[in-house]
């Protein structure tokens, strides 16, 4: 696209300003994480000298690392659980013919209209009665079934020509092998997208881990971050910001990696 230079300049200036506005909190947090408390109190924007004290402090004096690992486990388990269940149900909705398939799918999709907050109380009672408080099962299993994931993967599986399934049937390849060797590789980009989405959502979860845990054993990092604030009379902002930066890191890394894979997947295109 060709545009006059003044238009380009305004365009980019606007983009830079809005990007700065969007990123400002993150940038301020990053800058504060390198400052001493004194400096923060003085209201400086940039640290006069870079200090890693806050990072050392947060890792030594809190259980952040422990929560971090908990979060990693919980998010990974939820992600894998969601991918497994969503892809299997999507496969059934696309490749297996059974009576009432479309109706069932409709009901499946309808559950997306029930807000998470509405199901949180029954879910809480269920895991409490199962004795799953403070366990990884209690934190992860309620999130395995995901109508959105089934919907997304169903759309993606539908792009796979029916003839591929029929050719496999004739060659004597069963549903399992077809699912593993044809469907999954061909829907790779959607699966990666869903995986990234699932991981990030579970990583940023706050309400459920707060309810499902009563002690620190399985608590996740978002709660841990909140705990940093209330532990002391005077908030140690430098340390809190250092903690926040550590928590954000996996999200950023995953987004960068996922983005690359995603573009690759999109560029691949279908073959007629």
């Amino acid at each position, binding site marked *: 696209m060709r545009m006059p230079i003044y238009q380009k300049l305004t365009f980019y200036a606007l983009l830079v300003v809005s990007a700065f506005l969007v990123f400002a909190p993150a940038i301020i947090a990053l800058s504060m994480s390198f400052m001493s408390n004194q400096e923060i109190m003085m209201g400086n924007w940039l640290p006069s000298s870079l200090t890693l004290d806050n990072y050392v402090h947060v890792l030594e004096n809190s259980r952040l690392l422990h929560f971090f690992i908990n979060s990693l486990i919980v998010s990974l388990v939820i992600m894998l659980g969601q991918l497994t269940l969503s892809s299997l149900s999507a496969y059934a909705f696309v490749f297996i013919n059974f009576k009432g398939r479309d109706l069932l799918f409709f009901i499946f999709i309808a559950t997306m209209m029930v807000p998470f907050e509405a199901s949180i109380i029954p879910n809480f009672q269920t895991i409490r009665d199962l004795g799953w408080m403070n366990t990884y099962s209690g934190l992860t299993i309620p999130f395995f079934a995901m109508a959105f994931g089934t919907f997304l993967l169903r759309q993606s599986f539908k792009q796979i020509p029916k*003839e591929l399934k029929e050719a496999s*049937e004739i*060659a004597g390849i069963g549903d399992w092998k077809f699912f593993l060797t044809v469907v999954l590789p061909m829907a790779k980009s959607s699966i990666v997208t869903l995986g990234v989405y699932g991981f990030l959502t579970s990583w940023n979860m706050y309400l459920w881990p707060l309810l499902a845990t009563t002690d620190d054993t399985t608590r996740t990092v978002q709660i841990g971050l909140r705990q940093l604030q209330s532990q002391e009379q005077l908030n140690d902002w430098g340390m809190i910001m250092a903690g926040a930066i550590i928590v954000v890191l996996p999200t950023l890394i995953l987004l960068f990696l996922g983005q690359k894979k995603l573009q690759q997947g999109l560029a691949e295109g279908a073959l007629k």
Partner: protein
Amino acid sequence: MSHIEMENLKKTYDHQQNVLDGINLEISEGEFFVLVGPSGSGKSTLLRMIAGLEEISGGLLKMNGNVVNHLRPKERNLSMVFQNYALYPHLTVEQNILFGLHARKVSKSEQKKRLMETAEMMGLGDLLKRKPKQLSGGQRQRVALARAVVSQAPICLMDEPLSNLDAKLRAHMRMEIKRLQQQLGLTLVYVTHDQVEAMTMGDRIMVLHDGEIQQVGDPITLYNEPANLFVASFIGSPKINLTRAKVQDNQLYITDELKIPLRDTFLPKKELIVGIRAEHIQHATDETATHELEVITVEHLGNETSITFSVGNDYWTAKWIGQWQLKAGDKVKVSLTEEYLSFFDPVTEELIQPARVHAKEDEVVAI
């Protein structure tokens, strides 16, 4: 020996309309059998029923004498080539060809051997490491064929395998498929809507229309003695010329002015439909001419010329060898004689009598 046998085979969707109605058919071993018909005639459905991809609503399907109605596709021991080739885009050519063999528990060394043989036979040796999207249409087609060949299944089903290729390549692949079928002695069931493919490739052809068999026979019989008007107009290019005519006093009145004397033909009906193939409207000299027709259009094909005449309310097309310099409006002398005419019943559309002479004597070659 009959390899595939159908007894009163039926297909209905939702217990309503019959898509296929009472198909009785035997296909013998090593035969190239073509199912041809316009779209919606049920030919693909029939093929998919043989493959086991489509449920059979009624009747029996037998292979080697055993009923296979309820066998799953893989238990029927056949291979299939699809219109869009159904290649796995994420696998290489080699993996695509060998994909089914793992499932059939063929040993690694045997797989290797078959792969090499097939790749050589199909001219795919240099392409084994490529992905399908890096291949041209013709190469993809060959990979799809190789996948059928490598399975060594005695029955091969093909569903319009050439319709995605351009005309030149199609003619070439027609020959290759035919050669392959003969070389391997395959029983091949081939679905197409293209009557040229049917005529050039098939040992026997079945013409389907609206789920019913119109005629089964070898290509020349279908051409010379079409069982009804549908077969007559479906087989042959250009289309057979058909016109309503009346019989009176041993004269066949095609229009009031255009009449053909009937000397040896006895016709039970007063009104009928007359058919004449394009090559049977012959150019004539002054002595041999029987009629004079007005030219409407002329198409030059290089080695032959296709000329459309006005006959009453219809247009007749003639095909003459050579290049004819004619203009629209010219009057041309032709010879139209009874032995070249086919007669059909105007009500039932069935054949009453086929043309007695099918080609000029010097064109008939018998070996």
